């Protein structure tokens, strides 16, 4: 447990020192929200039905982007290999990385929710919606962390990560958009989307925890 927190603390410290990576992800997400906001405003007067899709595509792109950028430095400096050589189990390292990226991602997402509340004039910080955002983030962060920490090289990682991660995240995207829409009262539907989101989050976290040690074994 201590080792997990040590990894979390190390990752957050690195994220703080190397602010550029995370700030770029945040800036990218903010720009996306802005671009969506006025591009759709030109096309239609009622942008409200588009909001769940806008939110989740932005979250996903920012998340995948951050997963790639976050490990770039570590891979270049050989930190990751050094950690694997240390006498802690790979599972602990993975959990630490997952928790630290969850903290950073949720911070970015909250900033985005506030921005979207202003731009789309829609109260987004409701408990239900926050729960949906947390569940969805847990679902995608475990897979992007798994795929981001591995990878054959820094050059290929940046390009391949979105191509590899996004198809796997289609179910999560559909469930998250539907659940968000339901929570905002935009489109209903009787399917238990939040449940699917929760099951996906559980499944992806467990799978990533089990497969990570097998993948990094040398």
């Amino acid at each position, binding site marked *: 447990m201590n080792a997990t927190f040590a990894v979390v603390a190390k990752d957050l410290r690195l994220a703080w020192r190397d602010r550029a990576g995370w700030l770029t992800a945040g800036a990218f997400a903010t720009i996306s929200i802005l671009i969506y906001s006025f591009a759709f405003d030109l096309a239609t007067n009622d942008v409200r039905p588009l909001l769940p899709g806008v939110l989740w595509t932005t979250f996903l792109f920012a998340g995948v982007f951050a997963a790639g950028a976050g490990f770039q430095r570590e891979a270049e400096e050989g930190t990751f290999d050094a950690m694997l050589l240390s006498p802690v189990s790979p599972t602990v390292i993975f959990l630490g990385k997952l928790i630290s990226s969850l903290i950073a991602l949720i911070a970015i997402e909250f900033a985005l929710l506030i921005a979207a509340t202003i731009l789309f004039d829609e109260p987004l910080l409701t408990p239900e919606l926050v729960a949906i955002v947390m569940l969805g983030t847990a679902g995608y962060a475990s897979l992007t962390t798994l795929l981001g920490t591995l990878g054959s090289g820094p050059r290929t990682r940046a390009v391949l990560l979105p191509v*590899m991660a996004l198809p796997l995240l289609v179910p999560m995207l559909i469930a998250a958009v539907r659940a968000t829409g339901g929570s905002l009262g935009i489109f209903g539907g009787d399917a238990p989307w939040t449940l699917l989101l929760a099951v996906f989050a559980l499944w992806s976290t467990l799978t990533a925890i089990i497969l990570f040690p097998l993948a990094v074994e040398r």
Partner: protein
Amino acid sequence: MRTANRVYGLRWVLLPPLTGMGILAMLVGAVVAAPTELVEGDVQRLMYIHVPSAQAMYLAFGIVFVASIMVLWKRDMRWDAVARGAASVGVLFTAFALVTGSLWGKPIWGVYWQWDARLTSTLVLFLVYAAYLLARAVSDPGDEQAARYSAVYAIVGFLDVPFIVMSVRWWRTLHPQPIVSRLDPQLPGSMLAVLGISTLAIFLLALWLILLRTDTERLGQRLLGLRAAVDRREEA
């Protein structure tokens, strides 16, 4: 075991003529022997390639899944060759299923493409395994670390299938429900017979292509090993 090895040794003697005969029987069956469907007309004959292609896709991706587990478990690069071979053939048959499906969909549904449950899940599968091939292609064929990484991706991708199917099925559905793979098939006997022959033919073709691709990947790995050995010899 010995018999199995002997049969495997004869794969290049047995598979090509068997596949050839199967494909020929499939073509004759689908174009000439099978009755014309009353409502849809001749375009329904696409079924005899569409449905077996989709099944061959699942066969190939199943092989990728098993071979990927073996890569992680046995640390044997031969399984990586099997996984890559099966993945490329699976992607090919997925493309087949998607293209024939679109051609069939246009006259019957009025559109080439719809975000329907089964179409969407098949397309997502296509993207997942295309990404797998891409990830494996940018790395060295003999790179064990990259092989393990790709194996992890293939396993996650395969386990993701139920979620993909579930989410898109709740989302919307237009594609007809299965009519063959149930206890009382709803297809007339003559059509069912032709479909059986076509499935056998396509499976033989898929098997042949998978073995061919696997052997090619294996030869590529051995070539790299030989090159490395020659380099070491020259340096010494």
